[in-house]
């Protein structure tokens, strides 16, 4: 009897080990359905849809991939979901209308941008309390924490600035004017550079973290699409820092910037009004949320080809991918 049990356990363990990549799951927030669509990356199908708070937008995972933090904007809270059973197990006091969140590398602090109040809110996860708020520009949106955890940046959509904040004392030490309606920001893995997309400006800027100034600006040109409709929103850097992927909103394309060459090398056609993106664990796939068409595009990154569109809920906004609760290297 006991032997049998061990054997079964062993079998289960083996199955999980073999299946670790196949069990990767993508979590997509549906802004206008108050739900989360869960996509299995092996079959590329929605396997489950779960309810969330009102108007879910930004979503990130804890470092151990066991929890998801979901901005439920209209519920004025950040929900904590246990990914093993998809139950909401708690809430973080985010302040009003949280749209995006970022996790400090220490995994203990979450930053969230409160659009309606022009604030950056700093939350201690363990005690679930707000430990600070910083005044930023109008409609703060994009958030990024530097890899060394010393700096957090916020972009403000109507003020058109990148606000640089020291995480040690939560003070704003620099502000950089960028093109109109900055949406997303991401640090390079060495912490020397910051990438920022500007939706209405139609550009992506590369900033030096030494000077806090813009070094280069990238423009996009897609034949048959008016330049005013090319509106960079989500951006994503690969691990090797070879490519930057840029979601171009109503231009319905994802642009690929070759970082070494400092040029745009390709445009991939995806769904309508492409917003945010996420890689799977080994970065062989890129998923994009397409707000207007209500689907998710799956891109094969080795070939830079779009494989499939997957129908999800209304206005998919954020996306995060996990290997189903297993420990990752990050």
């Amino acid at each position, binding site marked *: 009897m006991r032997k049998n049990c061990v054997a079964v356990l062993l079998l289960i363990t083996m199955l999980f080990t073999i299946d670790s990549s196949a069990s990767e799951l993508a979590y997509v927030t549906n802004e206008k359905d108050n739900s989360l669509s869960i996509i299995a990356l092996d079959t590329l199908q929605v396997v489950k849809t779960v309810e969330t708070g009102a108007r879910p937008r930004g979503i990130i995972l804890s470092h151990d991939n066991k929890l998801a933090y979901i901005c439920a904007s209209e519920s004025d809270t950040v929900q904590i979901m246990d990914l093993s059973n998809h139950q909401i197990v708690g809430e973080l006091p985010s302040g009003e*209308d949280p749209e995006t969140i970022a996790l400090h590398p220490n995994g203990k602090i979450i930053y969230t941008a409160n*659009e*309606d109040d*022009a604030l950056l809110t700093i939350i201690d996860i363990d005690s679930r309390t707000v430990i600070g708020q910083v*005044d930023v*520009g*109008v*409609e703060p949106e994009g958030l990024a924490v530097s890899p060394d955890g010393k700096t957090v940046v916020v972009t*403000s*959509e*109507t*003020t*058109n*600035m990148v*606000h640089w904040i020291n995480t040690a004392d939560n003070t*704003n030490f620099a*502000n950089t*004017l960028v093109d*109109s*309606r900055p949406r997303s920001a991401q640090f390079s893995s060495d912490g020397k550079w910051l990438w920022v997309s500007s*939706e*209405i*400006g*139609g550009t992506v800027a590369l900033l030096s973290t030494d000077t806090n100034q813009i070094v280069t600006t990238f423009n996009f040109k897609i034949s048959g699409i*008016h330049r*005013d*409709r090319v*509106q960079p929103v989500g951006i994503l850097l690969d691990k090797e820092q070879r490519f930057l992927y840029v979601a171009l909103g*109503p231009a319905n394309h994802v642009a690929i910037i070759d970082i070494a060459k400092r040029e745009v090398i390709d445009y991939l056609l995806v769904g309508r009004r492409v917003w945010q993106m996420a890689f799977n664990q080994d970065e062989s796939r890129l998923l994009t949320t397409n707000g207007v068409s209500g689907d998710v595009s799956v891109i094969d990154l080795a070939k830079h080809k779009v494989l499939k569109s997957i129908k999800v809920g209304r206005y998919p906004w954020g996306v995060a991918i996990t290997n189903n609760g297993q420990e990752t290297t990050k």
Partner: protein
Amino acid sequence: MTLFRILTLLLLLIITGTNANENNKQNLKVSYLKLTVAAPATLSSMVTPPQDSGQQGAVLAVNDANTTGKFVNQQIILTTDILQSAEQITQTLKERYASGHRIFLINADKDALRSLQQWASDKQVLLFNIAATADILRKSWCDKNTLHTALSDSMKTDALAQWLLAKRLTKVLVVHGRFAKDLTIVSAFERSAKRYGLKLIEKKQWDFNADLRRSAAREMPLFTQTAREYDVVFIADAIKDFADYLPYNTYLPRPVIGSAGAQALGWHARIEQWGALQLQNRFNALANRPMNETDFAGYVALRSISSAFLSTKSSQVDTLKEYIQSADFGLGAYLGRKLTYRQWNGQLRMPISILHPTALISQSPQQGILHPTNELDTLGFEKAETGCRFN
């Protein structure tokens, strides 16, 4: 080593220079002038447009600008004057000018605006027209000192005509009220109909003298009975004297557009895409009422100024004006496109929403309507159509 010292010195100089700047904030004065007109009598006593339309939009934009200004030591100071007559508004403009104001938001009718333009014609000022929709201001009364953030009648009728074309609703019954403003809207619609190949099957003026609260169901069907069939009813009734009684009451069961039913508007409380929800939330918190198109015109006017102020770091009106009219300018304003001004008549280019009272129906320019340079120029007067030439 010496080079290093020089560099350090220079750096110190720059830092002290910045500090000195930080102590004295850069201010920009903006004056808001509103001419109050007595609300005309309408059939329904329930319709009263908010008296602070336009002003609240401007106030919100100042709040936004000054939140930004905290980071760059800039501040916009708004002064508001509510005036009762055309003479008073001109007098106040002169006084504000004398006290150093150069930028004005004008919420007044076309004639009052015209007299302000004439007084200011030899001065370096910038006037924003946030309320007057008359085509004549964009077509022949050209004024190099004025930018229009209010939509013109023709822009709205073009937006509707494009939508009718897209919906294949090409046979139109036109009904209008008895005021001069109604007739100018009809002329604008006639121009748009010609432009987009719509057929006007009949034109009728509403002159019944009935109590429609009791008998709309009887009066309106008779009024909209025609010899030939129509696809749609266009109504021009600027003060909404009788317009709201027309939908669902037409002789033939057809949609109503124009002053009731599906309306072309610069803004509406139900616009929520492109981050608009955030603007709506901020506005509701400030004004305790929904944001209307005059508020939006005031908001956009002030945002144009504040973004020029931020980019040029100048409070000189000619520098600001030049920047707003330059290729560098492009305002993000929750409509999915950057907004710019037409060089030839100072009109703001923007997509126009078509809405019924509780939801967005469509946005013009309609898909498939093409233009050699900018589709937004399919709404309103093209360069070749106006006599205005500033650049």
